[in-house]
C-alpha cells in the first residue's frame, strides 16, 4: 500500500493519527491531497454536519463543548472543526477554541481539529470543507464546524453545513436588530446564549420579529432556543431542535440543498483549477510580467487582457 492508501485505510477505521495526517495533507494542498479526497469521497455522506456561527463572545465554543458532551452521552461519535482567523499581517493564528473543550481531548469518540482561515473570506477555511469530509468518512455521526462570526459574509458556512446554528447573546454591544440580515437568513436554529443575563426575553422577541419579516423560503420555521452554556442549561432542548431539523432535511429538503452545495463546490473547484493552470503557464512562459506591464501602462485593461489570454488557451471560448 502506498502511504496515502495507508492513511485512507486508517481514516476509514477511525485511526486518529491517520485522520490528523490526512487533514494536514489536504490543508497544505500537498500533491496527494486530491487523491486522498477522491478515495474518501465515496465514504462521506453519513454524518450530520452542523455549522455554528455568531458574533465573537456569544459563547460558541462553550456551547459546542456542552453539545458534544451530550451527544457523547447518547453514544454518538463526534468530530469538531474549530476555525479561527488568520492574522492578515503575520499570516499566523491563535487557535484557542480547545481551551473550552479540554477534557474532550482524551475521549476516544471525539476528534477536534483547530484550523486557521488562512485568509479565506467568510469565516471558514478553504480546507474546512475537506476536513469535514475526512471526519465524515472516519465514521463520525455528527461533525460540528465552529465558524468565525467576525462580521463578514457568513455564506461560506452554508456550503459546508446542513444545519446552521446561529448563536447570539444579549448585551453584546449591538442590538439584535443591528445583526446583519445575512446572519438572520442563514440560521436554521437560533440560540440566545448567556440566558442568565438581562434582556434575554427582549432578544428572543427581537429575533422572532426579524424572522417574521423574512420571506418563507422553506417550510422550516427557525426556532429560537435559550441556553446558558456555561451551566449546561438548554442543551437538551437545542439538541432536540437540531435533531428535528435533521429529520426535516431527510424528509426531502436535504436533496435540494445537497444538489446546490455540490454544484457550488464543483464550480469552485473548476474555477480554481483553471485559474491556477493558466497563471502557472503564464509564469512559466515568462508572460505574466509582460501582461501586467501592459495593464499598468494602460495599453490594455484586466478584462481585455483576460479575454485575450483565455481565447488563446481555451479554443472556441467566448466571453460575455
Amino acid at each position: 500500500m502506498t502511504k496515502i492508501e495507508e492513511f485512507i485505510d486508517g481514516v476509514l477505521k477511525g485511526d486518529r493519527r491517520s485522520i490528523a495526517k490526512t487533514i494536514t495533507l489536504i490543508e497544505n494542498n500537498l500533491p496527494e491531497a486530491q487523491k486522498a479526497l477522491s478515495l474518501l469521497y465515496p465514504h462521506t455522506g453519513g454524518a450530520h454536519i452542523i455549522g455554528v456561527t455568531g458574533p465573537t463572545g456569544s459563547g460558541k465554543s462553550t456551547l459546542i463543548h456542552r453539545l458534544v458532551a451530550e451527544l457523547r452521552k447518547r453514544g454518538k461519535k463526534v468530530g469538531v472543526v474549530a476555525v479561527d482567523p488568520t492574522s492578515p499581517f503575520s499570516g499566523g493564528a491563535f487557535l484557542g477554541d480547545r481551551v473550552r473543550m479540554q477534557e474532550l481531548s482524551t475521549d476516544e469518540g471525539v476528534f477536534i481539529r483547530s484550523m486557521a482561515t488562512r485568509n479565506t473570506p467568510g469565516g471558514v477555511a478553504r480546507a474546512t470543507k475537506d476536513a469535514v469530509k475526512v471526519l465524515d468518512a472516519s465514521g463520525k455521526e455528527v461533525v460540528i464546524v465552529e465558524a468565525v462570526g467576525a462580521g463578514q459574509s457568513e455564506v461560506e458556512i452554508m456550503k459546508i453545513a446542513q444545519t446552521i446554528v446561529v448563536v447570539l447573546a444579549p448585551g453584546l454591544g449591538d442590538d439584535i436588530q443591528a445583526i446583519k440580515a445575512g446572519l438572520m437568513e442563514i440560521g436554521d436554529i437560533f440560540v440566545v446564549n448567556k440566558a442568565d443575563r438581562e434582556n434575554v426575553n427582549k432578544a428572543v422577541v427581537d429575533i422572532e420579529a426579524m424572522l417574521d419579516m423574512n420571506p418563507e423560503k422553506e417550510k422550516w420555521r427557525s426556532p429560537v432556543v435559550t441556553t446558558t452554556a456555561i451551566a449546561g442549561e438548554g442543551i437538551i432542548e437545542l439538541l432536540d431542535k437540531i435533531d428535528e431539523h435533521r429529520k426535516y432535511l431527510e424528509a426531502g429538503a436535504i436533496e435540494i440543498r445537497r444538489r446546490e452545495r455540490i454544484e457550488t463546490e464543483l464550480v469552485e473547484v473548476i474555477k480554481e483549477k483553471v485559474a491556477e493552470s493558466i497563471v502557472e503557464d503564464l509564469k512559466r512562459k515568462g508572460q505574466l510580467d509582460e501582461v501586467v506591464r501592459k495593464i499598468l501602462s494602460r495599453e490594455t485593461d484586466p478584462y481585455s487582457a483576460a479575454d485575450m489570454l483565455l481565447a488563446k488557451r481555451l479554443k472556441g471560448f467566448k466571453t460575455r
Partner: protein
Amino acid sequence: MSSERRIRVLVAKPGLDSHDRGAKVIARAFRDAGMEVIYTGLRQTPEQVVETALQEDVDVIALSILSGAHLALFPRIMELLKQRGLNDVLVFAGGIIPKEDVPHLKEIGIAEVFGPGTRTETLVKFIQENMRKGK
C-alpha cells in the same frame, strides 16, 4: 489552490500551574511570527497534551511549566509521544526549571530548555531553524 504551509505549534501547560501569562505571551509571539498556535489552557495532563498534539498534527510542542513538576510530567509526555508514533515533533520547554535538571531532560528528548527572561525572538528563531533543518 495554493495554501501556504504554516508551522503548527502547541503551547501546553502540563500540571497545576495557576497562571499562564508567560505561555500566552509566547503564544502571541509565535502567532506574530506567522505560526499557527494551538493553546489549550491550564491544567493539562500528559495524556491531554499528547492527544492534542496528535489530533492537531503539530510540528512543535512548547511545554510551559512553573510548578516544578517537570521531572514527573515530562518523561510521561515523551513516553506517550513515542507510543503514539509522534517521533517527528520538536519538543522544548520553558518556565521554572533548575539548570541541574536540564541534562536529564535533554536525554529524554527535550530539545532545549529556556529560562525565564528568554526573548521571544530566540524562541522563534529556534523553531524556524529546526524546521528548516527538517528536525
